[in-house]
């Protein structure tokens, strides 16, 4: 028995320790969700499915709730704080008016998401009016500036940690494009100026402020009134991120969801195109299997974690081995020994860069040329200016000529051949569906490909083949069981959902474990009809 336990989902071949699949703590993020709770957020609705309108406040809350649930699973080192502004009550360390920091027991204000936070936040709307209340914080004749206060509180929350070890962000949900609209003259100018200055100070500290505007059917969200200055957008970014008015709720939610996650680069690589022409690429893991975290052993009496001490014992003498042992391979009746240095030397066959070898027609990339999830590459001009230009030129040529690039990726763990497949951007009303760039597909070597189909037959006869008529019948069947708008992201992983439902219930000491639905079970009735 030991150390690693039957991992809940593990297929034998999966290697969860592989850095390829891991999120490391060093890439954590501190996020403050800053939610406008003004009456306008409660009065304004956007049309949802089945004629059910949803108020903007609810849209914001449900986006954050979803995001928290993802965070606790996928990126539990991230720390979050939830802060409302334009509230009746106040709760913050600075004791500023109109700002309410929401929190639950056993948790700091900016901390990792916990089961309790998720649970209580899920039902915050029931108690919101009673306990926190909605109230305009910027009114004529008063010197209060709830937006300013909110930014100040958020900044204070993010004082923790260094920007060297964490990415700090403020995500601002609001449907008010002109928060100082009710003011006039000097008061307005003054408040605008101080608020912008506050925002600038925050950004100078390395904290990014991102706006998640909520849109009404009949009214545009005009970022240029205040927010483009506040978050420092230039006109190009503007056009890209601000959705048009009249968007459907689902699309808006989609877009909010996508924008709540920051991109994480897994690696920066140099791409040698030809001798003398090397550009810089960033690689991103857009698709990786999400698995439940590793098991921690506990003492069942105290529920305290156990530490595991590993010791190496010589089987011949029984003595402890202190120094890292050599490795050996039995071969030709003896043990051939290798030092770890030798092994890494053997594996080092290339420089660690991505080296272009040539191009092939797309049809050369067979369905069975696959080993692992692909990695996305996107150019960066950050260190080598001009990288994007070459990349885009090659990208366009490859799309037009229907070619993919073959390159050698000399990483240290498994140097291998890869296919770089260019993909054009695909956008819908909900935002970007497929980003523009190239996908790096890891190609097998000859010894990785098996010919199981050739094991059979043992007879001299030719293999049976379907005739025209049989193919016709199969075609009719295919038409009958067709899924018109199948999308790859259609199913939640039922095992993962179940696992976390159980954990959540146990963590909150609830008796009932909520039922989870397995969406992957085929609709037998639907098929039969």
């Amino acid at each position: 028995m030991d150390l690693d336990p039957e991992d809940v989902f593990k297929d034998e071949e999966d290697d969860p320790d592989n850095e390829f699949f891991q999120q490391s703590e060093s890439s954590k993020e501190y996020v403050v969700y800053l939610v406008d709770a003004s009456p306008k957020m409660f009065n304004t609705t956007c049309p949802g499915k089945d004629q059910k309108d949803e108020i903007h406040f609810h849209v914001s809350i449900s986006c954050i709730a979803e995001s928290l649930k993802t965070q606790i699973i996928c990126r539990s080192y991230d720390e979050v704080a939830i802060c409302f502004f334009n509230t009746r009550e106040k709760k913050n360390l600075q004791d500023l008016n109109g700002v309410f920091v929401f929190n639950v027991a056993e948790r700091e204000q900016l901390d990792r998401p916990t089961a309790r936070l998720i649970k209580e936040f899920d039902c915050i709307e029931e108690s919101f009016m009673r306990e926190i209340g909605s109230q305009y914080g910027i009114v004529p004749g008063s010197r209060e500036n709830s937006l300013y206060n909110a930014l100040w509180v958020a900044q204070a929350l993010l004082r923790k940690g260094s920007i060297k070890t964490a990415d700090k962000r403020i995500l601002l949900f609001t449907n008010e494009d002109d928060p100082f609209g009710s003011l006039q003259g000097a008061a307005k100018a003054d408040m605008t100026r101080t608020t912008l200055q506050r925002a600038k100070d925050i950004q100078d500290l390395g904290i990014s402020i991102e706006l998640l505007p909520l849109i009404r059917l009949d009214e545009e969200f005009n970022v240029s009134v205040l927010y483009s200055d506040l978050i420092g957008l230039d006109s190009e970014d503007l056009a890209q991120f601000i959705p048009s008015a009249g968007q459907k709720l689902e699309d808006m939610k989609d877009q909010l969801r996508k924008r709540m996650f920051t991109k994480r680069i897994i690696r920066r690589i140099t791409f040698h195109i030809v001798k003398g022409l090397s550009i810089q690429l960033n690689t991103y893991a857009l698709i990786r299997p999400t698995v439940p975290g590793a098991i921690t052993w506990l003492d069942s009496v105290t529920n305290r974690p156990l530490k595991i001490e590993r010791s190496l014992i010589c089987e011949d003498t029984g003595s402890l081995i202190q120094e890292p042992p050599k490795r050996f391979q039995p071969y030709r009746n003896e043990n051939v020994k290798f030092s770890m240095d030798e092994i890494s030397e053997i594996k080092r066959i290339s420089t660690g860069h991505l080296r272009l070898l040539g191009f092939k027609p797309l049809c050369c990339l067979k369905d069975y040329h696959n080993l692992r999830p692909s990695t996305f590459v996107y150019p960066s001009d950050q260190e080598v200016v001009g990288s994007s230009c070459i990349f885009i030129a090659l990208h366009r040529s490859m799309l037009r000529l229907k070619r993919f690039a073959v390159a050698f990726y000399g990483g240290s763990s498994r140097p291998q051949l890869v296919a770089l497949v260019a993909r054009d951007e695909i956008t819908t009303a909900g935002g970007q569906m497929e980003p523009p760039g190239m996908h790096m597909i890891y190609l097998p070597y000859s010894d990785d490909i098996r010919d199981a189909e050739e094991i059979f037959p043992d007879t001299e006869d030719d293999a049976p083949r379907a005739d025209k008529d049989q193919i016709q019948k199969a075609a009719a069947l295919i038409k009958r069981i067709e899924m018109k708008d199948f999308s790859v992201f259609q199913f939640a992983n039922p095992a993962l959902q179940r696992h976390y439902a159980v954990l959540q219930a146990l963590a909150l000491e609830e008796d009932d474990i909520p039922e989870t639905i397995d969406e992957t079970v085929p609709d037998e009735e639907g098929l039969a009809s």
Partner: protein
Amino acid sequence: MARNKEKLVLLLDVGPSMHGVLPEVEKVCSMLVEKKLIFNKDDEVGVVVFGTEETNNELMDEVGGYENIVVLQDIKVVDGDLIDILKKLPRGTVDGDFLDAIVVGMDMLIKKYKGIYKGKKRLCLITNAIHPTKDSLEGSKEDQVGTLAVQMTAQGMKMESIVVRGILSQDANKRIMDENDRLLSIFSKKTRSRTVYVDSPISLLGALKTRRVTPVTVFRGHLELSQQMKIKVWVYKKTQEEKFPTLKKYSEKAPSTSKFATHQVMVDYEYKSVDDSSTVVPPEQRIKGYRYGPQVVPISDAERDAVKFKPEKGVKLLGFTDASNIIRHYYMKDVYLFIAEPGNTRAILAVSAIARAMKEMNKVAILRCVWRQGQQNVVVGVLTPNISQNNKIPDSFYFNVLPFIEDVREYQFPSFNSFPASWLPNEQQQMAADEFVQMLNLAPSGKEEALLPEFTPNPVLERFYHHLELKSKQPDAAVPPLDETLKRITEPDLELDFENKSVLDSLCKHFELKENSKKSARRLLPEKPSGSNGEDGNGNVSDARAVDSIGQEPVVKIEKIGDLTPVQDFEVMMTRRDNPEWVGKAIREMRDKILSLLTNSHGGDNYLVAVECIIALRKGCILEQVSPSPSLCFCCCFFLNLLCGFRCFCLMEPGPYNNLMRYLYRYCQEKEISTFPKLLASMDVTLISKSEAVDSSNFTDDEARRFLDKIKPEPKD
């Protein structure tokens, strides 16, 4: 177990026209045996060579004929001697007859096992098949091959033929080649044989599968199209990564002379309380905890069993959809193969009909799979048709796993169209790129596709087994450099680059890169790659130019010596006056460049550039007769000492140059390079003398010149 053993006879053409590729044949065959020694120790192998001067085989003794075929090794259980034999194949003197060799090989297998052994019997033929086979005594050659094929099937033998062609074989008579190809194709049609044609050394190394893996089914059962409609299928792995072998830990505690020592290491785990490291917590007191955010939730196995996700075993169809809905990069794993239950004609026909209909309609199927009972998860994936090109082999499907919602990260990336116009390629640049993509073609029509995954060996594993074999003979053998053939997997094909030199040059001319001087400090860290290996991440943008684009004509500020125009780069750097460090940096970089040009030169292709660089360096050193910074000297001494154990006495500029020359002299002597010194001498490149650099050189003109005589290789006696 016995059935699992393989009996293999290698039939190797060693005739004169094969000599060029025999080193590769030796490599791939010894690799085959090396792997068998580890993974299939009970396999038996025999070796037959043909095209030899001599003749030595039983058939000749018994019935006559079968000349120029030598049984190098009778079939026997694999051992080290076999490798030694395969590493030193004889070079033959006559053009061999592969049909005769096949007969000899079959005869060996038949005699050895006399129909008793029912396991795997295999012949592996490596030839270029460009020489005529002998006419048969009775009937046509086709008839003769037909008879052999029937016999082969009856005896349960398989044959794998690797035919070396293209640039690897010499010009040959097309008629004979066609006839030979036709004869070989009869084997493929009538027996369980496979013929592959290879035309590069890489694919020759990759064409022979050196590791024999017994296929194991992942699943046997129904593919359920609906509750009523089910097809019996078996599922195998189509691709699976062959990993670097897991080496065991070696204990050196027991004396190495001890016969009985196992040298094994046992790994022991102790679970201790965090608060009190003296107590070991017994297994029954331990409980598994699962992370949920910052909390660790304890769940006993019994509790977990009661509530965990328990899907029923089975493979169910969810539906068909357009192939275009499933983009290739969604594939999450290695590939599965679905075949109809062997021998089940109805199942084979059903798979064939659906696969062919899917292909015609350009559809794929979405499946939900639970491979075994008790599995705690499900996979949803895509089934694609695999229409068999071989009459013997039934149609089948490939399957790959698709991501769940939780597996996808929907990052947003700026649209290329939103980039400033200056970032986008202009028309000329686009044309240069188009031409480049078009011309650097690895799969030109009419030629073998280069770097076909099926034929590309894993260079790391090749190197490991090669080193293992070396070490078994010489325990302190150093890791050998990567084999020249394998290097071609990791680096661009020089020949292809050469053919397309104008296209490559045009690409370089049209695109300009420069180092970014103002990196935004803030965004750097959050975007820091988590596991970046700093090996050589920074130094390699050496061709980047820092271009100061004030005004129309950019003033080029060279900061590094690149590959393209090293001499010019050096000159510009030497004349930079904005920082006194530039001179030292230029000299340092130039020297490194010269050394790297020399050490990375293949057949002297870099020599000319290197000499040009040396001349430029010489000139620069004479011009800049200023006292260099101490750091330069230190660095330079260090570098040279490192390389050649040479004492450096440089204090002034000519120092680096003269030292470099002395080092080069030794380098060429050691490596027995004669062309480079000759080239230097012919260009009159001497040491820097006192008359050229008064303060810093101790050499008279004469001494400086004499150095050249010394550097010239001595005529060999």
